[in-house]
């Protein structure tokens, strides 16, 4: 989400071309964010496609078109959240599937263990940590993207880090 794009440059190209251009500039960053939040490459790809489908009908009406990457980031986080909620409902109403094995076997390396633990965090804690430590967003910007108060972000990050620390072996 770090690519900068002047909206006025994009006014010159056709609408489809404009979507293509925005995709080339932002899709990679959006996919990386989606992957870190979901831990699933295929799902991350789907989320990015869906985010662009949604943005296509909307970017004419954006209040600040230069902030396309901000809107996109927010859409990716919301789609990941919606997916997570749907999965929760599905799990609740399909107890037979509850015992499904994890799709990825746990890795034994320390960094991979950190990744595994990160993926096991509650979805909102994981999202807050990714936005803070990967996207390098401030607490205020993270709260804006997640649509929650700054205090909630502080608490989510703090609890998430606490859990990561507790699970890792002490040096």
């Amino acid at each position, binding site marked *: 989400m770090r690519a900068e794009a002047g909206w006025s440059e994009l006014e010159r190209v056709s609408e489809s071309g404009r979507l293509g251009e925005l995709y080339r500039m932002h899709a990679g960053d959006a996919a990386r964010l989606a992957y870190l939040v979901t831990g699933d490459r295929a799902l991350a790809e789907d989320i990015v496609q869906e985010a662009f489908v949604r943005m296509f009908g909307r970017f004419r009406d954006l209040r600040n078109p230069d902030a396309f990457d901000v809107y996109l980031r*927010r859409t990716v986080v*919301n789609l990941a959240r919606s997916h997570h909620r749907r999965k929760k409902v599905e799990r609740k109403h399909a107890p037979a599937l509850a015992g499904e094995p994890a799709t990825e076997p746990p890795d034994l390396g320390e960094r991979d263990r950190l990744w595994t633990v990160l993926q096991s965090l509650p979805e909102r804690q994981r999202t807050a940590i990714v936005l803070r430590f990967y996207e390098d967003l401030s607490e205020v910007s993270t709260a804006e993207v997640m649509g929650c108060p700054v205090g909630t972000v502080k608490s989510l990050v703090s609890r998430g880090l606490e859990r990561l620390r507790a699970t890792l072996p002490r040096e």
Partner: protein
Amino acid sequence: MEPDLKELLHRKADDMHLPPDLPPVTLRRARRRRGWSAAFASMTAVLFVAGTITGVQLMTRSSGTTIGQSPAPTGTPDEPTTPEPAPADSEFAVPAVWPETNRADIESEQQRVNTGADRWRTDPLATASHFANDVAGWNDVAVDIASLDPIVGSAVVDVVKRNQVDTEGFGALTLDMARVARSGAGGIWSVVTVAPYSPNGQHIDLSCGTDPLVPGRPATLCGALPPALANHASVRYAIFDGDRFDLASFGDAPVHGTMLVEHDRFHTSIIGQVDANASVLALEVLHSSGVVTAMVQRLRRSGASQAPAPR
């Protein structure tokens, strides 16, 4: 640990690659979606004009006739259901705010349920539970029918998050529900409005002395919470445009944000004006434990007050 975490996140992120160019299928989906949106906007406009003309004709034909709300639901869950024919096109209204928000999606879902899928949609209590789970994020709720009219197809359902310390409105909602696509047995239930459940009749008051929230006009969003809810609360708001939106994604709304509650009052100015296509106002009252109650209502295009009627 933070440097390790940062390094790990960047390393993992670098493993994620996408095709460099926009896949044609995504472009097709995007165009189709926008085409549908435009078609539904046009259809809504046509229906609105037709409805207005019909309404005016009815009123001029018989000045003694009042066009108002349906009679208040008075039945119980045990009442026998009498199937009614589906309403004619001209009578079809789409007041629903969840799960579907427009006519095409509701009809399509009704057809899907008719084939045996997601039968829970024909049960107002199960639909209310799903709403609490998906929108408020409450996993364990008690649901109770306050009133039900299976013939008209309307119900009022109270939803209470379990293990609450009191019943003053923490973790409790009242949902007005309706069978929008088809009345009678087999019709799917939709949520029409959401209000805080309060046994004492307390509600979120939006009549704060300024202009009411009306699409197409500058606006201030302000009001007051019941005292029992106000302590340490913040209010998240979203104003959704059009007839396609997702209550679970406040961040997707064209206008959204969070207001702090001082004493029991909240206040924010909407920059510019509320979009002329604005259709729904949604508020969530947040405490540290998450959403404690919510309010969702359709915006009226008249200057009428937006405050929900107390139960």
